[in-house]
């Protein structure tokens, strides 16, 4: 199959992954990125139709050590659309609260033979640790400050379906880069697909060695989003605006919050994205967030289901091939 950077001519088929797990975007080859996006685009076109039940008979466990309504529900909907049975384990009711270690939890779950484990954890690298102790395929649903691969993929899908391409687009990711797994995964994915990715952030919310990652960094919103096709705002946790990382919500909104004045610096038809949940009046003005002409925020949520369908299916197909080999 020839490597293409746009839509394939034939209907996209299920993707086989080079790895048994989906732990991150870093190191993913460009062909896999395109195939996942193409397959997800097919699902996106058929979100209200019946699709082939490729996960029928499979057990998928949502193991969330961090609260997340949006991501968990998105995975659950995606899995059910493909016919899987889904089990949700939230940390509040689990034995982790009783002092069980992560590895013990994994070993216990492994004995129940789930097919795919969807893991969200507050510590960077937790899914990698689980992957060493469990037979099921693991999909990283966000680990600490490290990666959130399905968020980056759904962002890429949203962009691709809106602009028809990713290559050559100028994309500003703005806000708390230090603590953002979304920023890292998007840098690898959107950068890998040929977009020019920039980070716009207060100097205190940028990792000190960010320059070594080969990304352009700006501390001024107008300068950073100048001529950008996409302005992606990140959530800033309120505890980071109490004088330790930044002085106040007041100063943050004035300097780094996206409002219509600052947005004028971007390209004329620039679109706004946000992984949610939003802090209105902090990193984004409501007027912008709710502007249907400019905001892709709801589209991102919709594409989340399609991307997770493609990813879960890919893990199942990859596991099946491995078993038959």
């Amino acid at each position: 199959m020839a490597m293409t950077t746009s839509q394939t001519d034939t209907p996209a088929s299920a993707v086989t992954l080079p790895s048994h797990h989906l732990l991150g975007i870093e190191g993913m080859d460009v062909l896999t990125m395109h195939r996942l996006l193409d397959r997800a685009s097919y699902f996106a076109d058929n979100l209200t139709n019946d699709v082939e039940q490729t996960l029928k008979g499979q057990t998928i466990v949502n193991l969330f050590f961090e609260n997340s309504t949006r991501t968990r529900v998105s995975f659950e909907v995606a899995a059910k659309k493909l016919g899987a049975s889904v089990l949700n384990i939230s940390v509040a009711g689990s034995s982790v609260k009783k002092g069980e270690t992560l590895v013990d939890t994994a070993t216990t779950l492994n004995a129940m033979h789930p097919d795919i484990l969807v893991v969200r954890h507050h510590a960077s690298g937790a899914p990698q640790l689980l992957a060493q102790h469990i037979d099921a395929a693991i999909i990283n649903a966000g680990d600490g400050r490290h990666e959130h691969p399905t968020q980056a993929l759904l962002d890429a899908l949203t962009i691709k379906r809106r602009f028809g391409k990713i290559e050559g687009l100028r994309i500003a990711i703005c806000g708390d880069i230090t603590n953002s797994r979304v920023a890292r995964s998007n840098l690898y994915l959107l950068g890998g697909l040929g977009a020019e990715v920039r980070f716009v952030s207060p100097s205190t919310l940028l990792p000190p060695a960010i320059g070594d990652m080969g990304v352009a960094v700006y501390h001024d919103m107008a300068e950073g989003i100048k001529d950008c096709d996409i302005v992606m705002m990140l959530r800033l946790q309120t505890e980071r605006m109490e004088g330790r990382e930044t002085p106040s919500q007041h100063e943050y909104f004035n300097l780094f919050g996206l409002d219509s004045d600052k947005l004028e610096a971007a390209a004329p038809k620039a679109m706004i994205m946000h992984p949610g949940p939003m802090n209105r009046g902090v990193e984004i003005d409501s007027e912008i967030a709710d502007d249907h002409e400019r905001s892709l925020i709801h589209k991102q949520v919709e594409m989340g289901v399609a991307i997770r369908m493609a990813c879960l299916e890919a893990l199942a197909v990859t596991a099946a091939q491995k078993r038959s080999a």
Partner: protein
Amino acid sequence: MKTLLKNAHIICPVQNFDASGYVGMDESHICASGIGAPKDEASYDKVIDCAGAFVTPGLVDMRVQSADPGFEHLETLETLLKAASASGVTSLVSLPDTDPVIDNRTVIDSLTLRASKLGGPRLYLYGALTQGQKGHHMAELGLMAQAGAVGFASGAHSIQDSLIMRRLMTYATMFDKPIIHHCEDYQLSEGGEMNEGETATRLGLIGIPSAAETIMVNRDIELARLTKARYHVAHISTAGSIDAVRRAKQDGLQITCDTAPPYALLNEHAVNSFNTAFRLNPPLRSEGDRLAVLQGLNDGTIDAIASDHAPVNRDEKAQPFGQASCGASGIETLFPNIMGLVANGSLTMKRAIELGSTAPARILGIAGGSLETGTAADIICFDANAATVIDQTKFHSRSRISPFHGQPAQGRLAYSFVNGALVHQDTN
């Protein structure tokens, strides 16, 4: 109206002038300056023959604490600006230790507006580094920079938490403004009354080791190395701190520092009388430290001399030495003190003007410090050799406690111009 000062000894460190010459100014800016005689004397409305007196850029006092707002019984903005105009200070920068603390743009806007109505010397402001000067939470540096803050300072406080200092330095790099820090390790200085040493031992006063300053200077230099911040040590006073700054400059860091006249002219022996005018923070140091200050002033390690003017009154000083408030009035002794350092051979006149005017203006990116054509006409004219005696009872400032009271001094100011306007003329 155009004014010409001719037959003057012109000192301009920027243009390297140190000879007989002239300076011409229009309504606000310098329109000509040079060595020798002016060519177009007839084009001026007013010509002043300086008869060999010095003409230099006015003093830029980068460390002044205004008591207003909040402590107007000690001093008002009006008396402070009057004191400045009468003593050759054409620009002053005030610290944020007011009440309310200058830690938001509203206070900056309000003080700037009031100063503009008073006229006279230019008033610039530092924004506080932390909210309420408490040392824990970053203040709104960005909004204060937008409102005109020329730098960020901790006032008389020292920030103990290294993490917050690191973040402040990192954050301040976005606005290209220096951080001005009073360096003091509180755990070492707590309860201290004067410099630690033989004098303190004899007087039975609790000592403050020079390490209390030196340790903090070294910490900050390492943080500035890490963050690439612009960092300025305020009123440097120990040999160890000066060495540290010297090395940091050799390493290419953007580090500057100032000292105040007491640390160049006095030492801890002054405390022998228990006179609370000598209770300062940092404390008067050893003679070795004082000599290190003089060396630093000459070799370029110390960039600037600032008055360290602090509003204090008699009540606060009429206490046993260790309980008296720290600080002294300084703005009206800055000029005679600098002239004293020239007269006793410690500094050349050109270096003195560089320290008192050119360097602070450059560090803060503000007007003044130069006689170049096109720059703001902030100019002083003075007789450097006139003998005077410092008399704190004659201060324009309401703050009338000086460690130099009664001391003979040098220099008499003849004229002072701010933005081309005559703000002071010697009437004697």
